[in-house]
């Protein structure tokens, strides 16, 4: 059971990373990644909503009638999103103001509804929980990387700390919408390259081990 949970957890971080592999829920990815601090808080909110809604929907999966499952999912997700929104407004009012409408918009985020529909409503609670945490962390890592690229190039800082030498003139375009698309494109390309290389390597090692086994079988 533990192994299956770990595999489900890892699945959301690299093989099926919601942002960089599934490319769903792109609205906050493009909008809030102007600074790393914003992306961290956005990520935390998504991890909370995703984990809680996945767990609850998995618990309720036998009671929810199939025909009205989407409205039921939305009610669950909206509840947790409201909690996240209000908590963020109380704890970090400044960040809440910057994130603005994107925290309430978690309700309609494809990642959360997608995981509810594709995973939580079909799997037992412990796996749904692992999937929620994994997908949430995968999303957070992806937007943190994107926000790091944009903040370093567009503001010359990281987490608000000045990184670049004094002579560096930040390229404002990177914290404007075009910068989001340009850096996201390169990030997706890099991710595709890495996954393709990994796939080649695993298929090669599999071939090698299977051919070794075949040889061993012959000799034995």
């Amino acid at each position, binding site marked *: 059971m533990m192994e299956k949970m770990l595999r489900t957890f890892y699945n959301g971080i690299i093989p099926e990373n919601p942002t960089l592999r599934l490319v769903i829920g792109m609205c906050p990815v493009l909008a809030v990644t102007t600074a790393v601090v914003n992306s961290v808080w956005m990520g935390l909110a998504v991890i909370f909503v995703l984990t809680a809604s996945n767990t609850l929907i998995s618990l309720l999966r036998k009671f929810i009638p199939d025909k009205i499952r989407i409205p039921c999912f939305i009610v669950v997700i909206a509840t947790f999103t409201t909690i996240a929104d209000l908590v963020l407004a109380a704890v970090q009012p400044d960040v809440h103001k910057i994130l603005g409408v994107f925290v309430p918009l978690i309700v309609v985020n494809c990642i959360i509804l997608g995981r509810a529909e594709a995973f939580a409503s079909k799997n037992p609670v412990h796996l749904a929980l692992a999937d929620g945490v994994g997908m949430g962390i995968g999303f957070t890592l992806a937007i943190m990387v994107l926000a790091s690229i944009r903040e370093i190039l567009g503001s010359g800082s990281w987490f608000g700390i000045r990184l670049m030498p004094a002579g560096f*003139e930040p*390229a*404002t*375009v*990177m914290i*404007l919408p*075009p910068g989001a698309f*340009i850096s996201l*494109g390169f990030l997706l*390309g890099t991710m595709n390259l890495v996954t393709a290389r990994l796939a080649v390597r695993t298929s090669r090692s599999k071939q090698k081990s299977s051919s070794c086994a075949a040889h061993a079988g012959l000799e034995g």
Partner: protein
Amino acid sequence: MEEKKAVPGFDKLVVASSPHIRAVETVDRLMWQVIIALMPAAVVSVYFFGLRALVLMLVGIASAVLTEALVEKALKKEITIADGSAALTGLLLAFNVPANAPWWMVAVGAAFAIAVVKQTFGGLGANFVNPALAARAFMLAAWPQHMTGKFPVPLDSITAATPLAILKGTATGTLPSYLDLFIGNVGGVLGETSALALLVGGAYLIWQKVIDWRTPAGFIGTVAVLTWIFGGKGGLFTGDPLHHVLAGGLILGAFFMATDYVTSPITPKGRLIFGIGCGFITVLIRLWGGYPEGVSYSILLMNLVVPFLDRWTLPRVYGVTRARA
């Protein structure tokens, strides 16, 4: 099997597949022709803005060529820096910055043009917008402090507002005379100021049949007509079309950027429509938009509709009647 009698010299006869008659036009020749046509403007620019202009042009060319070589090496593609297209992009990009622009901005802009706009879409022939203009838009959004405002004045170390900004009313100053505008004795980016030098280069390209006259004619004609009708403060038909045509980057854009082979239509009718569309958007931006100049954005926007223009203006195949709906 009976042995064939050998025909003397038969084994030396090589028949390649068609085409058997080749034109002299190659990518290399066309690109170098355009670079030659830009030389008058480059010389005038160096004369008016000093050695600084030459440095920026060389930085742009060097950065573009180097980026092209590096990216193609990294992607394990054939290195095509000798065809001159990267050098042309670098030169055109340098033509788009004011003389007081920092050299590193030109270097980054040229690298962006080649690496992001051209090579990520597949290299020469596959980029969907003009690399030099897209990089100009990138620099304008990235470092507006270096790309807008007051530009250096020729033969002087002071800066002043550009003629178009004065014409638009966003800056104060006296409008330069037509003669100054024509020979290029006005403030502006490196390559745009001298209408005379650009017209010489453009005429050379049309004479050499490198570019089609339809695109620049449609572009400049539309700007002239529309600014004459709507450009005046005292009502319709009181505008100053000559000023609008000579000032700003219109002539540079119309002859050297809107005619880029990759990003302009291939049909004659399409080229005319392309030029008119560019002129229309330029006037919209110049008269009612937020920027004093709209040539670069108009060409970028029209680049995007080129595939539709090509399909729309497809010539009728001889002997085939159009199906009636």
